[in-house]
C-alpha cells in the first residue's frame, strides 16, 4: 500500500462515508424530531431540527383517536404467523429436495424456481377473487396464507440442507428413527443459522409488506401498519406531526430488531448474493 498518500486518502474516504451516512440518517432524524412537534412548528422555514416546544400530542392522538394499537397487533400477528409457518413449510420442502430422490424431483424443483420469475401483481387479482369467494377477505387467514410458501425460502433451505452430512441421517435411520423424528430432532436443529437468517428476512418482509394487505383489508380493523400509515396520510393529510408519529411506530420496531440481530441480518443478505 502507498504509505505517502494514505493519510489524505484515509481522510477522503472517511469524509465521504460520513457525508453519506448523514444523508442516510437525516430523514430518520427529521422523522423523529417532527413527530414531537405541533403544527405551527412544522410549517416553519428554516426547519427546526430540535423542537423548541416538544409535545407528545401526536403520539397521544395516534394511540387514542387513531388507535394504532390495532394495526400494530395485526402486523405482529401476521408477521409472526407467516414467519413460523413459512420456516416450517419451506424447510420441509427444502429437506425433500435436498435429501431425497423421487420421480419428478427435477421438474418440480425447476417449477418452484420458475415461480420466482412471476411478479406478485400477476397472482394478486385471482388470489383476491379466490379469497373473496371463500369469505376470507379482511381476515388473518387472507393476510397469512398466500405468503407461506415462498420459492426463495424453499431454495434457500435446500441449498443449506444439501450441505448437511448424510451420515447423520443414515445413522438415525439405522437406529430406527421415524422420518419426522429425524427431521425434527436432527435436521432442523442443524439448520439453526439458516432458519435464523430466513426467519429474519421473512419477518422483516412481512412487516413491511404493503400492496397485499392494502388490497385484502377492507376494514380498518384488519389494517396492518403500512396500510394504516398510508390511510393516515390520506385522512389526516395536513397533520404532518401525526403522520411522522405513525411512521415512527412502523419503523422503530424493525430498527430495534435489526440492532439486536444485525449480525444475522448482514450475513443473510450477504448469503443471498453469494448463492444467487
Amino acid at each position, binding site marked *: 500500500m502507498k504509505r505517502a498518500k*494514505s493519510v489524505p486518502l484515509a481522510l477522503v*474516504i*472517511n469524509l465521504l*462515508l460520513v457525508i*453519506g451516512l448523514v444523508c*442516510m440518517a*437525516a*430523514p430518520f432524524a*427529521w*422523522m423523529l424530531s417532527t413527530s414531537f412537534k405541533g403544527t405551527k412548528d412544522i410549517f416553519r*422555514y428554516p426547519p427546526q431540527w430540535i423542537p423548541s416546544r416538544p409535545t407528545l400530542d401526536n403520539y397521544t392522538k395516534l394511540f387514542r383517536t387513531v388507535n394504532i394499537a390495532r394495526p400494530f397487533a395485526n402486523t405482529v400477528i401476521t408477521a409472526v404467523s407467516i414467519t413460523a409457518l413459512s420456516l416450517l*413449510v*419451506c424447510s*420441509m*420442502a427444502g*429437506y425433500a*429436495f435436498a435429501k*431425497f430422490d*423421487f420421480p419428478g424431483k427435477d421438474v418440480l424443483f425447476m*417449477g*418452484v424456481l420458475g*415461480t420466482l*420469475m*412471476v*411478479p406478485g*401483481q*400477476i*397472482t*394478486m*387479482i*385471482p388470489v383476491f*377473487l379466490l379469497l373473496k369467494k371463500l369469505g376470507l377477505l379482511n381476515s388473518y387467514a387472507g393476510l397469512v*396464507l398466500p405468503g*407461506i*410458501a415462498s420459492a426463495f425460502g*424453499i431454495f434457500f433451505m435446500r441449498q443449506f440442507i444439501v450441505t448437511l452430512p448424510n451420515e447423520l441421517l443414515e445413522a438415525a435411520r439405522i437406529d430406527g428413527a421415524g*422420518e419426522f423424528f429425524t*427431521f425434527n430432532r436432527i435436521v432442523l436443529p442443524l439448520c439453526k443459522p439458516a432458519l435464523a437468517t430466513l426467519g429474519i428476512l421473512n419477518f422483516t418482509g412481512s*412487516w413491511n409488506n*404493503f*400492496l397485499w394487505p392494502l*388490497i385484502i383489508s377492507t376494514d380498518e380493523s384488519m389494517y396492518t401498519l*403500512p396500510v394504516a*400509515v398510508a390511510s*393516515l*396520510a390520506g385522512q389526516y393529510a395536513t397533520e*404532518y406531526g401525526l*403522520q*411522522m408519529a405513525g*411512521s415512527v411506530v412502523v*419503523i422503530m420496531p424493525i*430498527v430495534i430488531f435489526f440492532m439486536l440481530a*444485525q449480525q444475522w441480518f*448482514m450475513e443473510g*443478505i*450477504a*448469503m443471498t*448474493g*453469494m448463492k*444467487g
Partner: protein
Amino acid sequence: MQRRARVAYMFLAPALILMMVFVVVPVVASFVMSLTDFNIRALANWGNARFIGFGNYIRLFGDELFWKALRNTLYFVGIGVPLAVTLSLLLAALLNSPLNRAKSLFRIGYYLPSITETVAIAVVWRWVLNSRYGILKQALEMVGLDSPNWLGDPAWAMPAIIMMAVWKGLGHNALIFLAGLQSIPSTVYEAAQIDGANGWEQFRFVTLPLLAPTTFFVGTMTLIGYLQLFAEPYTLTDGGPLDATLSIVLYMYRHGFKFFNLGYASAMAYVLFGLIFVATLLTMKRKGEEVTFG
C-alpha cells in the same frame, strides 16, 4: 426407494399445495381473466364476465395513459438501476477499504433505510422534498443551490422518486457487493501489483471482472424490483403531477381496485410480466458475455 419417495412427497405436500393454490393456478387464471371484460358486474357474479379474446391487449395498445406509465417506468429503471448499482458498488468499495475507521457503525447506518417500510419512509420523504419547508431545500441552499419544486413540477417528480428509491436500496446492495469484494482473494491483487498495476488499474482489471457475478445479481434484482415501482408514487404523488410518476403497477392498481376493471388490469399485469421476463433474459445474455477468471 418407493417408501422414501412417498416420504419426500409428504414433506413437499404443504409447500406444493400452497404454491398450486396461490401461485400456479392464479397465474393461469390471471391470463384467462385478461381475455375477458371482467368488471364490477362480474365482481357481483362471475358469470357476467364475457370472453373478449385479446380485446384488452388491443385496448392497452391504444391507451395513451398506459404508454405514459410504460415510459415513466422505463425512465425510472433506465436511470435508477445504473445509478443504484454504481453507487452501491462505490459504497462497498469505500466500506471495504482498510482505511475506513468505523466499519460497524457505517454498515449499520447505511443499512437502515433498507429495512424501513416504504410507505412509512415515503411519508417522511414527502416532507423532506417539500418545496417550502423541506430539509432537502435547506441542504441545497447551504451549498448555494436552488431547490426545485420536487413533487409539484412534472419535470422533477420522477427524479425525486429515483432519488428516494436509490437512497433506500443503497445499503442492501452495498452489503451484497461487500460480500463479493471480500471473496476476492488477496493473492490476485498481489499478482496484479507485481505486474505493476496501480490502484485504479487493479480495480478496473481485477476487481470489476471478478465481481461480475455479483454485479449481475445486484443489477437483475434491482431491475426486477424497479419495474414493479408502486409504493413510492402511490404515497408521494399518486402518479402525478400530470401523470409524470404514474408507474405500470400504479396504473394497474387504479384500474383493478379503483375502477374494478379487473380483466383490463390482468392484461396489464401480463404485459409487466413480459417486460420482466425480457429484461431478465437480456441481462442473462449480457452475463454470458462477461469474462470470468479463476
